[in-house]
């Protein structure tokens, strides 16, 4: 008999919740628990983390159980998990770059970084389009937020 995973997503998410809940219980154990009457700072988070771990365990276990009866495709009709690694990294990098740049390098460079990283696919194939998007967004943002709303941000490196 071959073991098939009926619902890979449920199994993965269940294990993820089990891990998060377990981590919350271990990390949260450093805070004073107290009693139900006089709860310390650790009581409530520990209970919630335990609940998450429990739900995760149940979810993972039931996903294994349904697998036996399931005969159809291994992913329950949907395709395999799509990782989209490059857009994931580029967009996360854009957001982080905005955070690194906004305070000292100013709004203009921060937006430029988001647009350049966000449009990674077209940087070489359609450079003018990316340039145009960047310039328009910079113009709108500087006019609206710095001049219009008077946000206390620099436009350019101070």
């Amino acid at each position, binding site marked *: 008999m071959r073991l098939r995973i009926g619902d890979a*997503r*449920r199994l*993965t*998410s*269940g294990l*993820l*919740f089990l891990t998060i809940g377990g981590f*919350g219980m271990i*990390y*949260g154990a450093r*805070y*004073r628990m107290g009693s*139900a*009457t*006089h*709860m*310390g*700072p*650790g009581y*409530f*988070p520990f209970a*919630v983390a335990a*609940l*998450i771990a429990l*739900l*995760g365990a*149940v*979810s993972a276990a*039931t996903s294994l159980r349904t697998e036996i009866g399931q005969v159809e495709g291994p992913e329950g009709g949907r395709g395999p*998990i*799509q990782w*989209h690694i*490059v*857009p*994931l990294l580029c*967009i*996360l990098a*854009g*957001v*982080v770059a*905005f*955070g*690194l740049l*906004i305070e000292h390098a100013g709004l203009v460079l*921060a*937006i430029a970084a*988001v*647009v350049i990283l*966000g*449009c990674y*696919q077209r940087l070489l194939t359609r450079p003018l*389009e990316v340039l145009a*998007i960047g310039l328009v*967004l910079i113009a709108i*943002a500087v006019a609206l*937020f710095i001049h219009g*709303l008077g*946000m*206390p*941000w620099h436009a350019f490196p101070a």
Partner: protein
Amino acid sequence: MSVVDNIALGFSVAVTPQNFLYCLAGAFLGTLVGVFPGLGPVTTIAMLLPFTFKLPAVASLIMLSGIYYGAHHSGSTTAVMLNMPGEPTSVVICIDGHPMARQGRAGPALAIAALASFFAGCVAVVIIAFFSPPLASVGLMFGPADYASLIVMALVTASALSSESLITTTAMAALGVLLGTVGTDVNSGTIRFDFGRSALDDGVSFVAAAVGLFAFADVITHVGALHERVPLSAKITGLLPTRADLKASTPAILRGTAIGSAFGILPGTGPLISSFASYVMERQLAKDPSRFGKGAIEGVAGPEAANNAAALTHFIPMLTLGIPAGAANALLMGALIIQGIAPGPLLIEQHADLFWGVVASMWIGNLMLLVLNLPLVGIWVRLLAIPYRVLYPAVLVFCCIGVYSVSNATFDLYLAAVFAFAGFIFKQLDCSPAPLILGLVLGPMLEENTRRALLLSRGDFTVFLTEPISLAMLILAVVLVFVFSRSAFRDRQARLANP
């Protein structure tokens, strides 16, 4: 004061030139941003938050509400024209709205949607005016155990209404509650789960969480699967619905409004279930159910009315009990808290001008939406032709600005990036992020009330079952879970029967 006096007070606040302008600006901007495919109410509110921070409290809430219902309304335009739900609530509008557009009847579909929205909005405003004060006085009777059970009910209901497995969504809500405990514990002053970062002392910014989980995670998924969108095939030829359209729509609009208002008052439900329930009801009542899915106008009119009625009546539990329904509503409530207004049973009494001003502005805003949308529908439709590859860099930039503007903290951007990663994973694993946001906003209240309830009962957990209001809330939660999971079960059965 009688209701009439209150409404008069409200209009006197709402029609001052400044507040009127902010109402108009909110409704207009909400519609403008919300019409873009892929931009739901959560993203729209997050992007437009910076515009509301510097305003006085009343103007700010008026503008935020305008953005909120504007964004809810414009989702249907995207659904009809592109068959692309800009937000989950318009999924239902796609079913019959888009076939109408393909038959060259996009104009009447949009006009009926606008009329349905307006009518539902008018009724919802009246319901808010009449039901909020009594509900607030009920709220004043709530003890800590009752509040804790009410929050549990809201979280459980929100979880039960998602399409995914109940265990998964409950775990997401619990995860939100756990994230809500991050930061300083108000009772002991202990700083929890800060990982040595003082930036987390004040807790997790829910704007960062919402933007990361919804806006950024959506962009990552869409860009990853970037294929050019379906071109805009449908054209708008005439706006005016025929007499037959109006005749068919009127009862559907009435029923949709009733369903939306009834569900809207229940905390935790969110507008999706209302529009879905309305659609199912119209199909059941129709003489010829086979027309549905092929451009039946009732399938647009009913759900759109239900959607807007629910979106507005959600303000009742949000403003009078401090319990938001759905993620967009939670974000709105969070923005109010940033403004220093704590929604709850005392709000109507202590901020009468604010409450009634907002209620009156909702009516004005809905009228404005009708006036704006019918002539401007051509412009909205042209906006839909903007390709996603041009649109998403703007979403990224304005969301970054929105997150940063809340407290000028760069840490919030890093947090949003972490949430974007988590949101991407959750999306891949079919875990809906909406219960998490609700848990995050309600978590601190849940902990506070649970602790107080158990302190009063000397650690006796049965207090949640012996207090009558608390028991009623828990029973309601169980009933709702049972009803909704059973109807979901029946749906699955039906889909299996005729795929």
